[in-house]
């Protein structure tokens, strides 16, 4: 279980692991699925990262465009799940 700010942590994971560019300035509103930053393999890695980092389990029906479109929506999802362990 981590107290890390989800936005900061997600920015780092995505720039280091998916974008392969540690210097990338990632906008929280950037459409990461649309612009190809996250592909289906990247999405799987991202889900694993979120599950490990915040100790939550993400059921497949939560892995949706609404939750994973941008860093902002992902962080919102993590925060909601931290408050209430099951709801999307």
């Amino acid at each position, binding site marked *: 279980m981590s107290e890390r700010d989800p936005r900061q942590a997600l920015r780092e994971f995505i720039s280091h692991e998916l974008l392969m560019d540690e210097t990338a300035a990632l906008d929280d509103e950037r459409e990461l699925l649309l612009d190809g930053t996250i*592909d*289906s393999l990247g999405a799987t890695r991202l889900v694993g990262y979120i599950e490990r980092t915040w100790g939550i389990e993400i059921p497949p*029906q939560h*892995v*949706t*465009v609404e939750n994973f479109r941008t860093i902002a929506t992902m962080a919102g999802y993590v925060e909601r799940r931290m408050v209430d362990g099951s709801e999307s």
Partner: protein
Amino acid sequence: MGTRMVYLLQQLVADAADHDPDQLALVCRGSRLTYGELEQRSNALAHALIERGVERGDRVGVFANKSVETGVAMYGIMAAGGAYVPLDPTSPASRLAYVIQDCGIQHVIAENRQRATIASLERLCVKLDTVIGLTDADISYPAMGWTEIESRGEAPRRRVLEQDLCYVLYTSGSTGVPKGIMHTHRSALSWANVTASEYSIGDDDVLSNYAPIHFDLSTLDFFGGAKGRATVVMIPEEHMKLSASLASVLEQSQITLFYTVPLALVQLSTPGVLDRGDFSSLKRILFGGEPMPLKHLHSLMRMLPETRFFNVYGPTEVNGVTHYEVPGPPPVHGDALPIGLPYDNVEALVLDEEDRPVPQTKVGELAIRSATSMRGYWGRPDLNERAFYFRDRFDGLPEVFHRTGDLVHQDRDGVLHFHGRKDRQIKSRGYRVELDEVEAVLITHTDVVEAAVYGVPTQDGTTEIRAAVTLARASAATPSSLRTYLAEKLPGYAVPTVLTVLEDFPRTPTGKVDRRRIAEATTALSTSGERS
């Protein structure tokens, strides 16, 4: 009114519009176009392109994410007498610049979302006469917004023949630069005819368009859909990547024919994805591009017992040429699915190293004679010389077969079975990649002394690209900086997921780099957590 002669692809749309202008043609991101509107808007675009100087046979770029305008662009370019060339919006600017220059593209249809990359093209000194579809004036190329395009009823009159160029698809090339595969109206229309007839596509069908237009899977959706006067629902890129969202598009749009890659089906078969929805509309699922993992196909076929499943085979050069209908949930540990029998209008030969047909049941290279075959590679006489096999006929007028580079055998029933590649081309998550291209780009880095790029099979049935390098003495390059370097030159799917720096490469007794031993050594490293 007589019957319209259909010898150009866009005439399928005109024909559908004549027949029922209100039939829905394209749906994407909440926008929809009927066949009447699609015909009208593509004719208007065609006039605008001609006024901007597009001549018969000119290649026009389409640089956009999925939207109904993508369809307008494709058919409008054809109606102007040109050929469409998809430009992958996820490709780095340097690669797009190469394609634009290699193919002699002077006109591009784009959208605001690609503005930043278009600005990079300007910095790379790429010359363009017109960029259509941008509303912003902040590029220095002459731009023209969609609203500036005046509506005109009639299609422009141009003498274009069925043998003329219809589209060019760029794909990975082993020498380090992509190559353009040229298709004509004739090959495209033949493909439309095959698919509409084999899969009984009609006006009550709703086809998905899964693959973006730079990917050859998209041609079945658009061309077969237009031939059958069906509705095509373009699945937004962001929905393609997440199986729960993909499933909801399939359900809500009541897709009746879904053509995709095995990886998407593997992900859809994950528990929790399809079990809640109603997929009773989904009559056929077609998949191709890579071998389908049987375990996942088995569970998917049990989840969708009313759906027919087809394994479709064919490299981009020839479109689809064979298929196999899976009779029922396959044994999980059985043999790989066959690629099946050639379609009726296709001849398949299996050749040995000396171009002689192999005895039945023996493995050889598959060569294909089909009206769906490409014209050749754009501007590459070297490749065209090797791409075809000529069987003598009619006193020196040979029959032309395309050499696929795929190894197959034909069983006693004539059914074809796939055995891999003759060369180092692989499929990774449905994308076609020449491992030699990745190597060739890696070696251009000043610090890289030697590079080895290889494929490693993954658990979900596809292939992951990995690389190892040896570096110059005192080099500061790291796996991360090398992958960043590659990401500036290659599409994301071609960038190795793991890159390892080695002191020296293992070699075969004859001194060649031993990629198999490198793969073994680095796989052992990466499973112990050495991911870079």
